[in-house]
């Protein structure tokens, strides 16, 4: 029995599968901010999160630095609290940073836009567990239309 040939072919088969997996890993999948493990959590309270979902991206100037880890409602003041899981590679955002909920394109997904503040002396960096004070809520179409009509009416 030519078991040698069989072994070589099975070896080639496994190697091909590993090559395919590598291709998926390197060219197809986004290991993103999660990929290299270490993250820290920041919290932000919004009035309205619109269509934001768990796993939505957190971007600084278009670069993904983290993901939305959790969305919950604060039991005291009934405002949504969003947990942002930020890659530990980016751990020097000043306390004055702000976050807003933005939409990519007209019909695109919503993501968290992270606007780093200025770092002046006396302003500390955000650390694990901190709240980001300066937040802008998602734009809700109905509110926009309502505002527009209201402004029209007062003209």
């Amino acid at each position, binding site marked *: 029995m030519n*078991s040698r040939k*069989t*072994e070589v*072919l*099975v070896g*080639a*088969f*496994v190697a*091909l*599968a590993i*090559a*395919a*997996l590598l*291709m*998926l*890993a390197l*060219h*197809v*999948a*986004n*290991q*993103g901010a*999660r*990929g290299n493990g270490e993250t820290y959590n920041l919290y932000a309270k919004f009035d309205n999160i619109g269509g934001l*979902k*768990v*796993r939505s991206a957190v971007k600084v100037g278009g670069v*993904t630095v983290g993901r939305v880890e959790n969305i919950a409602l604060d039991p005291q003041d009934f405002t949504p609290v969003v947990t942002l899981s930020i890659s530990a590679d980016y751990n020097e955002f000043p306390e004055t940073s702000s976050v807003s909920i933005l939409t990519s394109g007209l*019909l695109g997904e919503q993501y968290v836009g992270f606007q780093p503040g200025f770092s002046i002396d006396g302003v500390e960096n955000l650390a694990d567990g901190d709240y980001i004070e300066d937040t802008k809520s998602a734009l809700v179409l109905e509110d926009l239309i309502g505002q527009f009509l209201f402004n029209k009416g007062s003209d």
Partner: protein
Amino acid sequence: MEWLARLGSATLARFSAMGRATFVLTGALIAKPQPMKHIPLTIQQMYVVGVQSLSIIVVSGLFIGMVMALQGYTILVDYGAEGSLGPMVALSLLRELGPVVTALLFAGRAGSALTAEIGLMKATEQLSSMEMMAVDPLRRVVAPRLWAGMISMPLLAIIFSAVGILGGHLVGVDWLGVDAGSYWSIMQSTVEWNEDVMNGIIKSVVFAFVCTWIAIFKGYDAVPTSEGISKATTQTVVYSSLAVLGLDFVLTAIMFGIE
């Protein structure tokens, strides 16, 4: 009264089949491993179920990727979103089509062959004679085939998805003129390693287990006549396909359906 009895006997038959299937599975899996003997046997079987299924998997993957790119393009181009062709092809392949179509092809190509082979070994008394030689056929014949199937199918599914994505590239980029950069980069920013790739592989492992188990049990449990084996082979393909599609829904609901 008559139908009640029939329902009862059908139920009992199902349960006893499940019991026998579990017996076959445990007999094959819970066996003292003898690596020197069993690894070469498993490699031999991986050649049969894995390497020999490769051509059908590669060709199917290529064509499915190409068709999806073509279909997706005609829809997406209306919204000016043909840049999203990459993620569309990649996500459909990784999450659904890769594991599911591989499992269906595997059931038809390798599963039916496994059933027929084991059924024929039973019909020609090879299993019986092995048992009389004090060699447990569950360990010597069934176990290597079970392991080979369980290892090979996820590998085939990975190859299927990768080839499909390349097929999508072939049609989308090389033929229809989608920008190669956006095909890859939007794909890369959308597809998640854990959520999409790993979940697809987990699905494939589950399907591999179920399909190989069904194939082996149907062969081992076949009525040892030509009619019995042909029936068992058909049942392998039907049951495996139904199990894969049903389980796919359940797994998808667990993996992607719950926020």
